[in-house]
Every structure is written in structure tokens, then in C-alpha cells.
């Protein structure tokens, strides 16, 4: 029992459950999931579906943060990926061609990969601080996306493309399946190979890692590449879901939610130990929070404030110092500290 309570994901999980339960008071059918036309419908499904782009971005961000870095450019990469895919599909003679859509998807992901290499090289070869290095692409990337789309929203009507973000397979939303597959593949790759432990070593102690013979440069570039590809897929899901490329809205401020999801998941911003499961849980929690604000009818102008309050509570619940202070007071009131010990 205490082992469960002490698990680092215990409190985020509790907050998630509380959030979901609180919805029931405002929407009694919140937990109801129905099967219509072979598709699962319900608020819980909505939570998962709307969490998909964020979960992917948070997954990539986890690896970058584990190396001791940060990637601010993920939102812009999402925008580029969506813009490229929609432009390519828009130019197809037959927008319904599956081959054409696959080509568009491939092109978008290759460009995302290039963006990741750019970030990785700036950070690990040229030695620019990660926050600055990725700020470049954060600003420039959205500019590129806007340039590509001519500042317009590019609409597409391609049924195969729609499947990615809005389709269903085996009654489950395709986007949820994509995320599940990517997360599972990432966990397998990272934990079955030595990538995970080497990245953790580099993030926790770059000097010690170097003297242990770890070549951090390649690992760091790979982390940024992975983050960018994850963002690219997220961009495809986002633009497929709305059947258009909106270079201003796609992935706007998602880097902040992604960083928050990673931190909620128990990965320290200083690098080192990371938890992919934690980051995915964090992404679902943030998505649940967004949906809860709608369900309980938080006025639009106070949505951000409401979100902030929940995040503060969440962070406090994760703070060892805060918990210690609260619990100690409850158990042993008025204990005067023993004679002061000099540091």
C-alpha cells in the first residue's frame, strides 16, 4: 500500500481521477461510452483523442529533457509538418489517392527529421544552449510554415488523410492507435536497447559520462530528431483532424503544455532519469483538465486561471517538501526541533 502511495505517479493519477470524477456532477453521462456505427463515443474517448498530439510531443520532449536539454520548436515543427502535408495533398490530381497521402506523410516526417537534426547539431555540435538553439526554430519554423501556406489556411478534402486524425479502426480512434503504437515502439526501442540508460547518464552527469566513454553528441542529436519526428506526427494528426493546415494555430504554445506534461510525469528538467509513462499520463491529465473546464462551464475568460490553479495544486502534491510539511503537522503536532545542527 505504501509502495503505491510512494510511487512517483501516484499523485498525478489521483489528480486525474479527481478531475474526471468531478465532471460527473456537471455531466452525469460523462463516464458513459457508447458504440455507434462501430465507433466508440463518449467523453472519456474525447479526453484520449484530444490528448493525442500533446502525448506525442511530450514523448519526444521527454527524451530531450532527459539529455538535459529542452525543445521549444516542437509547435513550429507541427505547423511545418501539417503545412507540407496539406500543400502536397492539395496539389494531387486525386486527393483520395492513398499513395499520394502516404507520400505527403513521408515528406512531412522527413522535413521534421531535418528540423530535429538542425536542433541537435546546434545544441551538441555547435554548443548553443538548448533553450536558445530551439528558440531559433520556434520562431523561424512558424515563419517557414506561414511562408509555405502563404499565410492562408490550406483546406484539403482527402478522405485517406482524414483517417489519421479523425478516423476509426476497430471502433477506436486512429489517432489514439497511432499514439499507442508510437509510445509502445519508443518504450521498446529505448528500454530494450541501451539508449535509455546512456541518455540518463548523459543528462545526469555529462562529465562523468564523458569519462565513462559515452559519446553524448550522437545521443543528443538522436533525442532532438526523435522529438521533431514526434512533433511531426502530432502535426499530421492535428491538421488531419481539422482537414486543413493552419500555420498560426497548429501547435501554438504546445511546447509549454508538453514541458508541463513531462514535469508532471516526474522527469526532472535538469535531465537524467525519465519516465515515458509519466509524460503520457501528464498529457492525458492536461487534456482532461481542458475538457473539464468546458464541462463544468468555467467562463472562457477564467479558463487559464482555472488551469493554473489545478497545476499549482498538482505541483504541490508532487513536492516532497510540501507533503512532508502537511503530513508532519497532522501526525506530530508541535514538535520543537532539536538543538540546531550547524550545516
Amino acid at each position, binding site marked *: 500500500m505504501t509502495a503505491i502511495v510512494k510511487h512517483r505517479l501516484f499523485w498525478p493519477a489521483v489528480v486525474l481521477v479527481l478531475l474526471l470524477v468531478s465532471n460527473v456532477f456537471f455531466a452525469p453521462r460523462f463516464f458513459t461510452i457508447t458504440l455507434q456505427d462501430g465507433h466508440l463515443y463518449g467523453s472519456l474517448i474525447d479526453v484520449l483523442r484530444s490528448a493525442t498530439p500533446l502525448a506525442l510531443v511530450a514523448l519526444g520532449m521527454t527524451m530531450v529533457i532527459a539529455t538535459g536539454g529542452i525543445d521549444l520548436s516542437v509547435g513550429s515543427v507541427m505547423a511545418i509538418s501539417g503545412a507540407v502535408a496539406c500543400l502536397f495533398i492539395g496539389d494531387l490530381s486525386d486527393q483520395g489517392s492513398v499513395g499520394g497521402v502516404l507520400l505527403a506523410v513521408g515528406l512531412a516526417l522527413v522535413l521534421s527529421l531535418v528540423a530535429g537534426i538542425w536542433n541537435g547539431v546546434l545544441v551538441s555540435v555547435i554548443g548553443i544552449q538548448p533553450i536558445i538553439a530551439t528558440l531559433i526554430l520556434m520562431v523561424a519554423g512558424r515563419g517557414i510554415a506561414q511562408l509555405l501556406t502563404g499565410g492562408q489556411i490550406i483546406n484539403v478534402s482527402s478522405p485517406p488523410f482524414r483517417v489519421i486524425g479523425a478516423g476509426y479502426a476497430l471502433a477506436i480512434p486512429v489517432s489514439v492507435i497511432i499514439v499507442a503504437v508510437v509510445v509502445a515502439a519508443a518504450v521498446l526501442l529505448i528500454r*530494450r*536497447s*541501451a*539508449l535509455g*540508460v*546512456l541518455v*540518463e*547518464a548523459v543528462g*545526469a*552527469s555529462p*562529465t*562523468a*559520462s*564523458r*569519462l*565513462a*566513454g*559515452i*559519446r553524448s553528441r550522437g*545521443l543528443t542529436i538522436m533525442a532532438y530528431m526523435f522529438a521533431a519526428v514526434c512533433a511531426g506526427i502530432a502535426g499530421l494528426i492535428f491538421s488531419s483532424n481539422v482537414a486543413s493546415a493552419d500555420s498560426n494555430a497548429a501547435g501554438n504554445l504546445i511546447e509549454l503544455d508538453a514541458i508541463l506534461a513531462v514535469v508532471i510525469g516526474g522527469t526532472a528538467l535538469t535531465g*537524467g*532519469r525519465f519516465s515515458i509513462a509519466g509524460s503520457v499520463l501528464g498529457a492525458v491529465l492536461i487534456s482532461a483538465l481542458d475538457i473539464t473546464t468546458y464541462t463544468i462551464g468555467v467562463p472562457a475568460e477564467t479558463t487559464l486561471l482555472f488551469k493554473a490553479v489545478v497545476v499549482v495544486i498538482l505541483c504541490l502534491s508532487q513536492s516532497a517538501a510540501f507533503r512532508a510539511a502537511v503530513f508532519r503537522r497532522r501526525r506530530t503536532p508541535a514538535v520543537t526541533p532539536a538543538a540546531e*545542527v*550547524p550545516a
Partner: protein
Amino acid sequence: MGDPPILQMTGIRKTFPGVVALDGVDFALRPGEVHALMGENGAGKSTLIKVLTGVYGIDAGDIRLNGTPVRFGGPLQAQQAGISTVYQEVNLCANLSVAENIFIGREPRRFGKIRWSEMRRRSAALLAGLDLHLDVAAPLSTYSLAIQQMVAIARAIDISAKVLILDEPTSSLDASEVERLFEVMRRLKRDGVAILFISHFLDQVYAVADRMTVLRNGTLIGEYATAELTQMQLVTKMIGKELTVLERLEEEPRTVTADAPREPIIETHELGRTGAIAPFDLTIRGGEIVGLAGLLGSGRTELARLLFGADRPDEGTIKIDGNPVALRTPRVAMNHGIAFSSENRRTEGVVGELSVRENIVLALQASRGWSRPIPRRKQDELVERYIKTLGIRPADPDVAVRNLSGGNQQKVLLARWLITEPRLLIVDEPTRGIDVGAKAEIQRLLVELADGGMAVLFVSAELEEVLRLSHKIEVLRERHLVEELDNTGGGVDADRVMQAIASGATP
């Protein structure tokens, strides 16, 4: 010098949990003298300075400034009372101008507005007093470290000109810069400033200090006039010749015997790195323990790092098995069968966040690359074997290394390198700060490894330890390898090494 002391510390005692850092230490500083504070690492020099400047409180004792008892709440109060400290690392703002650095926090103002011209004029005058003629409007970073050091001193004496503490000011300066600094110190001395000088370089101490106080293990050994104490006597007092109780608990002194000569594993020719270690020739053979002896800052670690590719040499050559190689990175050195356990166990050795298992397999995994993970069964087998062989406690492979004691962290680090089956094992201070039992175990292990044919480069500040284990002792002095002593048959004693440390011929 019949002047009454400006600063008098008597019976200073300072304890930290479990450690007595200073025990009944007396110290007196007179106006117009340069007084060196001498002692090996951990002798209590920095604690004494921190106690004096109010960084730490004291448990017992008395500090008097000009005869009045004082207790400072912090360096700022000490500075206001006339005691300024200039540390080893220049802690000024390199991006600000020289004048700004001198006057930061106390700029001359009129109606709240900084009077820049006044500030520049006064800075220039102040520096001219030290025979320094600089462009005071230029950023500090445009000047050499030595000049920056002197700007820090100028700032310190302008704030308060009674007592100046210089903590290792010369460690990053070259010979001509040191001479320049000494000129400034002599000038200040003539002006009646009392200077407390800390340096690991004996020649420098003898060049500039009038008097010295020697500490060892937190106790006062004595105060001496520089002219009355030879370097040899000083080294003996600093290191302490008698075997301590601790050491008697260790193994019986081992007589090192020579086997049939083996082929050299590594040979260096004129290998050197500017500012770290002067060019040296060194040969290490299989089955041989080579000890590096020398005072702190003599270049022991710097030499070891060059052999592992942790730093790049800027001259000279390395041959491994007779073939020239360039050890550009640690990884390259590892591929040649070299392993290096750093003296900075916590920052450059183990990764505290990771588990014992992960730390032990880290180097082997790194050399295999990320795509070829060591199978879990193999990991378990290796980790279990080394936890048992080295007696790592707790014997739990999944506990985070930061929760282990220093000795056990050291064993984890050794295990990390031993599983890579190196041909040359470089260990820098493997026994520092660990308990007696673990220390003896590690020494025994090194001997066994060498008997098994491995070459070991053993770096330690403890002379007895180096003497007991090494076949060959390389003596370093002020970043030069000054002498090589053959210890097979136990032919070398501590006196002989100390003599080399104190007076070895510096080229």
C-alpha cells in the same frame, strides 16, 4: 618584527558533524608581513580562512583584530572591518569594465547618478599605485587572468587595506605573471598591509613569505620564520612522517619485488599540456604499479588525464605497444585498453542518480554502443560477481549510487572499469576519504590486479600508500616530472621521496 599582531586567533576549534576540522589552532598576522598558511589538502587551511571571515562560526577560541575581540557574521562584515579575501577563481564580472569591477556596489554617485569619469579616474590612480597601467574602461575579460587577479586585489585593498587574504592566487598564473603578482604583494607589504598567502607551490612561498604557519589534520604544527626552515623540513612537517594509527591497521608493509621485465604498454615522449603539465617521458609496463607522488597541484591528476584522453596534449607523442596513437577522447583511450577512475568521484566518476548495476556496466555499455545492450543475464552475472569480490554494501544492484558511502562509490567505480578488462588502469586518489577497511581492500585489489599482469598507474597524495604499492615512483613537483625512483625491493623510503618533492631539480 616587533609589531603587535593586527590579527590574533587563539585556540580556534571548529567541528563539523563527525569531523574536527580545527583543533586549538593559533594564528597571528602582523602588519607589513606576508604570512603563508601551509598544509596538505584537508589540513584545515580553508576552514581557518572561512572561520576568520565569518563564513563559519567557531566552537571555541578567540579572534582579535587590533586587540579587540571580533566575531564576523559573514565576509561582508569582515570586509567592513578591514579583512578582504581574494580567492583562487577570480570572482569578478568579466563582462564589466575594469573600473566598474573595482567600484561595483559602491560607485561614486552624485544625486543618485553614477559619476563615471570620477570612477575611471580613481580606478586608474588605484591601479597605478600597483604599477598597473590599464585602460580601465575596457571589459575585464580583455585582460589576462593575472591582471584580473590584480584588479581583484586592487578592489580588495581599496575597500579595506589592513588584512588581505590571498587564497591560491597563483594556481592559474604562469611564471612571469606570478612574479608580477609578487611585485604587487611586496609593494603592499611596504605600505603596511598584512597579507595571508596560501599556495601549494613551495618555491613561491619561499620567494615571497616572511613567515609561515603549518597545519596538519586540523592541528597547529607551528609557526616558523621562512628563513629558518628548509623546504625539506617544511614538507616533513606538512605531510607528517610518523605512521598514523590508521595506517598501522592496514596491511603489513609489502615489499615490492621485480618480476621478469615485461614489454611497455604505454610510453610517452615529451608529452605535455600548457598550464597543466610540462613535457614528460613515462613508460608503464604490464604487471607494474607506477605511483605518482607530489604535493597537491603538482600536476598528478593532469598527467593522468593526458594518458586517458580526458584532456588533449598539445605536444609530444604517446605509443601503445610501440605504435604511436592519438588519444583524442576517453573513448579512444578505452579502445586501447586504458581505464581511468577520477579523483572527483561524485562529479566525474559515478552517476549518482543511476543504480549500482547501471553504473557498473556503464563503461562497457558505452564501448559497445547503444544498439548492443548487454543482456540482462550477463549484467546480473557481472554485477553480482563484482559486488561480491569488492564487497560493495549494500549488496543491492538496484539502489541509487548516490546513497552509497564514498568507499562503496569508489568500489562501484573500480568495478565499472574492471569489467572492461583494461590493460592499464589509472586510479586517481582511489582511497581518499574512505574508511580504513575499504582502503586496505582497494590496495590489496590493485596489487592482485598487477600480479595478474595489469599495468596500474596509482595516484595518491598519501606517500606511505604510494611507497607500499608502487614498483616505480614518479615524483612530480610544480607541474614537472622531476624524478623517477625504482622501488623494487622496497629500496625507497619516505625521506627519499620527500627530498625529491622538496628539492627535485626543476628544469
